[in-house]
């Protein structure tokens, strides 16, 4: 067989090689395509089940959300750092002292809430609407436990409306517990040591004066 015989077979081999390559390629691609088909089928299923809410898109420029209610204590707020500025907080405390007219906020009063922690004097000023004053039946003083209130509002480490003081602008106030007025009983026995010592001191004074006159 000469070159003429080979020449007749070349085109056939080329076609055969091409066909094999094509089959091989199809064999490789088919599973992937089937996977896409699956994905295409599942996503289309999901979208058919739930409509996409355009308002539920993530805004990458959004700052941390301050509308989260932070249940905290007065002690913690008094030691707060600047990250607490403007936070919406909830605290419980005892109303102490007095309620004073807010000069710069008509219709509001200032109260002072004291921490309920034993041994703590931490206090914070709270600006409340006048309508909540009726909740307060007693102010914490000597021999008097003040009304306990739960206050929700915006905490300011340095208040821009009130010359930089630390305060809470209350948005809602709830009564937790009424105040207690204690009546101190008069007990003469507690006065006896003092009376005895004062009497002794006065007697000594007379003795001193007598000795002083005698020395003259």
């Amino acid at each position, binding site marked *: 067989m000469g070159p003429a015989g080979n020449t007749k077979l070349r085109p056939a081999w080329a076609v055969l090689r091409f066909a094999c390559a094509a089959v091989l390629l199809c064999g490789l691609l088919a599973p992937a395509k089937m996977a896409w088909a699956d994905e295409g089928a599942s996503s289309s299923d999901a979208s058919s089940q739930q409509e996409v809410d355009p308002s539920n898109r993530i805004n990458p420029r959004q700052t941390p959300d301050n509308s989260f209610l932070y249940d905290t204590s007065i002690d913690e707020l008094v030691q707060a750092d600047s990250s607490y500025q403007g936070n919406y907080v909830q605290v419980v405390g005892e109303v102490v*002292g007095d309620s004073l007219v807010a000069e710069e906020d008509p219709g509001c009063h200032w109260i002072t809430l004291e921490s309920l922690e034993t041994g703590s004097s931490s206090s914070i000023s709270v600006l409340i609407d006048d309508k909540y004053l009726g909740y307060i039946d007693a102010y914490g003083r000597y021999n008097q436990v003040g009304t306990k209130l739960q206050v929700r509002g915006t905490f300011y480490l*340095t208040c821009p409306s009130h010359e*930089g*003081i630390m305060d809470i602008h209350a948005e809602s106030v709830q009564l937790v517990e009424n105040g207690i007025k204690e009546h101190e009983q008069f007990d003469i026995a507690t*006065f006896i040591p003092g009376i005895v010592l004062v009497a002794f001191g006065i007697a000594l004074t007379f003795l001193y004066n007598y000795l002083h006159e005698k020395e*003259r």
Partner: protein
Amino acid sequence: MWQRFTLYDFRVIGHYLGVLLVFEAVAMAAPVLVALIFQEWNPASRYLLGAGIALTLGTGLRMLRISPGRLSRQQAIGVTGFAWIVLSAVSAIPLAMSMHYDSYPNALFDAVSAFTTTDASVLVDINHVSHSDNMWRFIMNFVGGVGLVVVAMSFGIMGNSTSSLYSSEGRGEHVLPNVVQTARFIFRFAISVILIATILIGTVLLVLGMQPDRAYLHGIWLAMASFMTAGLTPMATSVTYYHSLAVEGILMVLMVYGGINFALQNEIWHGRPRMFLRDNEVQAGVVWWLVMLLVFITAACGSALANGLPVLMRTGLFTFVSAATTTGFTMFTSNQLAVLYPSGAVLVLALVMAVGASAGSTAGGIKLNRIAIVVKSAVETMRSTVSPDSARIVTNYSHIGKRRLGEDEVKAAMTVLILFISTYAIGALAGIAYGYDATSAITESVAMASNSGMSTGIVSPVMPEGLRVIYILEMWAGRLEFVTLLALACKIFVSVKPRGLGRRRRG
């Protein structure tokens, strides 16, 4: 050569300490009366007991020397030096018996703090303190601010030995030629100012909604605390409790007034304001405060949260005036001071506290007059350096009359300046050694020794015992401006040292 105290000296000192204790017993009648009016039976019994202890102890001490005669200068130093700590120790007894102090040392700290008008407090649950306890704390402020000895002299109970006592309490200027007249003037002047201020503040608080009894009680307490440049308040939130521009304005005027020399106030009172305006100390004070206020505002502007104009004008200015007059009222919590203000602004406050206000006033610190004298001396030195050898440099200045700058004034000013700075440094190092940060330790030490009391939070019921003792000593020494106390310490040391010890060593 140090002269020892003899047994006779101790008896005389004991006698006069007894006189002051009897006076304290009478003063305790005020909280007893307040307690009876408001039916605070427990405080009434405590202060009655305290009065009994003071009266018994005082009369017993008086018997050490029935007729003591005239006080020598050395004995006067002993009386003045011991008086502050002895009276504080007895004052602390009824306080310690209340529920507001964990221990007697804490009550003693508060009593010393009140008498020295420092008013850094370790009291617990201040919002529930009785009216009588508060009244006693503010009476201690008043007596300490005017001066224990001055108050006693104004009542004529110190006998003939007045001049040496007056000067040993750190008062160098005579308002009137006679020391007793001076003491009476200061006492009556202070009472008058406090009375007027009480009516003003009480009326404002009444308008704000306080009950009348509380309004005028708070009025008298705030009036005492501000004019005596003490800084004590009956509520935990200090001046911010009142949320009132009017109250803050009145307090600022009173603080500045309390920081002015009583002798100069007498000149104004008698229609001679020119002497006030020409006064070296007043001029130095104006320049110093303006410069430091500018630096403070500039430093505070560095804070993101404290740079608004309303914040600076109201709370910043109030805080500055409170520090400069060594009063110690705060419109910021110690946490706000640490978080909001740059350390530079806090150190500016420490610096103005360190210098203080006018000599012969109720304020503490090194005093503006001494700084002015030191600066004038430095200028004079520079002038003499650049002048020919034959030139004679004389520096005149005006301070309650015309004066010539002499070596004695410069020496006295430099001595006290060095002692103050050393004490600030020692107290600061002690705070640092106990683990506190440097800015807080420095500011706290200055607040104690200058009797301003503007605390950064180190002073608390749980502060270390060693630091409490150091701060008590700082307050005591600062109030007496060191010389009296150091002289007393040296004399006691020499008195207890066995005789012949030095001679044996030399042999």
